[in-house]
């Protein structure tokens, strides 16, 4: 088949998956947060409130799309794309089954993390170009926090690479199917990755960038209609991207222990998606449980506690792996 067509189909498939995920995540977050707070979430539209998603999407599509007079027009228009496109590209490195992965370069994990370093700049552009006080403060908090927590995320991704011997996500997933899921030997890395994912997706308890009580809507205050919808979609897309990353690194990706890839066949997609949504459920439960961290507090935690701890853990882990290998080789 024409390679251009294949590439286009892959990109289109990723886009469709992201849109579906966005609509499911909108419903899921409201229901999960509701039940975590002993209330119901949406119930009126459709059975158990499912049509609320359609109502939300229609509302976002039909609202008036205006921009503030003082805003920096070009940056204001481009900012949602700077947020969304790298997340979209990063999403394409995720393996859904042993054959279904949109892009599989040699170092797909590092490439994914490299692309995930760009959205904070888009968020800053969105806040800065809006030229409103809430947006600017939200943008500054966002950029500070997200840069801080990128580094422990990168460091937390290293122990699985040590165990698997490769930086390719597919290879890491396959290595987990031959041994145990890496959450067990690398549990501190798993916890660090969860915390960093919670920050990178701007969810509570690290949602100082978009806290309603503080900043109206933070960096997306001056955005309306579909531009806001785009940012909203980008947030849920980031949610799924990070969940997929953590599932691939620590929870065995699309594999199940003891079942080979051929036996799983197309059900691997279901396994993978189920694991991702379990993790997204965990993110939402944490979002509904913990109170918000103050800006200087979470920056302090990121630089002074999480970063040295993850560095120390890498050293300890690598030493332990080497010692175990020497003992096994010697004995």
């Amino acid at each position, binding site marked *: 088949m024409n390679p251009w067509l294949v590439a286009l189909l892959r990109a289109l498939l990723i886009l469709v998956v992201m849109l579906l995920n966005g609509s499911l995540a909108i419903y899921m977050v409201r229901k999960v947060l*509701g*039940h*975590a*707070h*002993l*209330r*119901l979430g949406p*119930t009126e539209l459709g059975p158990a409130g499912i049509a609320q998603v359609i109502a939300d999407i229609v509302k976002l599509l039909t609202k008036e799309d205006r921009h503030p007079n003082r805003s920096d027009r070009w940056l204001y228009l481009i900012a949602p794309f700077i947020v969304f496109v790298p997340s979209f590209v990063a999403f394409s490195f995720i393996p859904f089954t042993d054959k279904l992965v949109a892009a599989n370069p040699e170092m797909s994990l590092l490439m994914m993390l490299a692309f995930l370093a760009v959205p904070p700049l888009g968020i800053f552009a969105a806040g800065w170009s809006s030229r409103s006080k809430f947006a600017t403060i939200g943008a500054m908090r966002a950029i500070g926090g997200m840069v801080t927590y990128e580094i422990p995320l990168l460091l937390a991704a290293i122990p699985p690479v040590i165990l698997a011997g490769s930086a390719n996500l597919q290879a890491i997933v396959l290595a987990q199917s031959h041994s145990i899921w890496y959450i067990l030997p690398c549990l501190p890395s798993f916890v660090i990755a969860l915390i960093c994912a919670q920050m990178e997706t701007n969810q509570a308890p690290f949602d100082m960038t978009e806290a309603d009580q503080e900043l109206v809507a933070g960096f997306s205050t001056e955005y309306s209609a579909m531009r806001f919808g785009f940012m909203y979609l980008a947030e849920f897309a980031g949610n799924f991207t990070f969940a997929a990353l953590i599932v691939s690194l620590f929870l065995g990706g699309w594999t199940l222990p003891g079942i080979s890839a051929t036996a799983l066949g197309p059900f691997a997609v279901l396994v993978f998606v189920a694991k991702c949504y379990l993790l997204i459920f965990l993110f939402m*439960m944490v979002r*509904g*449980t*913990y*109170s918000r961290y103050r800006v200087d507090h979470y920056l302090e935690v990121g630089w002074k506690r999480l970063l040295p701890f993850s560095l120390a853990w890498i050293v300890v882990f690598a030493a332990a792996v080497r010692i175990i290998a020497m003992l096994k080789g010697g004995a």
Partner: protein
Amino acid sequence: MTTSLTPASASAPKKAHWPSGLISAARIAAINLFRRNITIQYPKQRYDQPDRSRWAVEQVFDEAGMHRCTACKICEQSCSDKCIHIDVETREDKTKFIHAWNYERAACMMCGLCVEACPYGAIRMGHDYELAHSASAEKRIDLLREVEAIDPRKKQAADTQEAPDA
């Protein structure tokens, strides 16, 4: 001589260490996952009012449909918002006729002082809270109109007569 407010034997509150907050929040969240929600989906479901809940003032009617108001106007005097206006005509034989027992329900703050003050138990705090209205005329309503006021002496006699029987 100065004495400290806390006695020497009182101990300072125990200082919580940092995981305890995270763990207790997680415990509460885990428990909440298995609790039923506490939402009452108004208007499909309604909340049972406690007996002592205070909503708008209502007249008390006995089994025969007779009111108990004697037009003594104690409630009118005790109302803090001056919501009650009793239009009473006193005839030559000292009997009273209530033309209108007017009640400004929209201004009433439902403190219950009038009900406490009424010596005859003629009014009570009702349980109806769905009092929203769109017509301005519904702000002030007449709870009684063109009725004879109960004679307090006859009522007292009736009460003392009933007491030994009951």
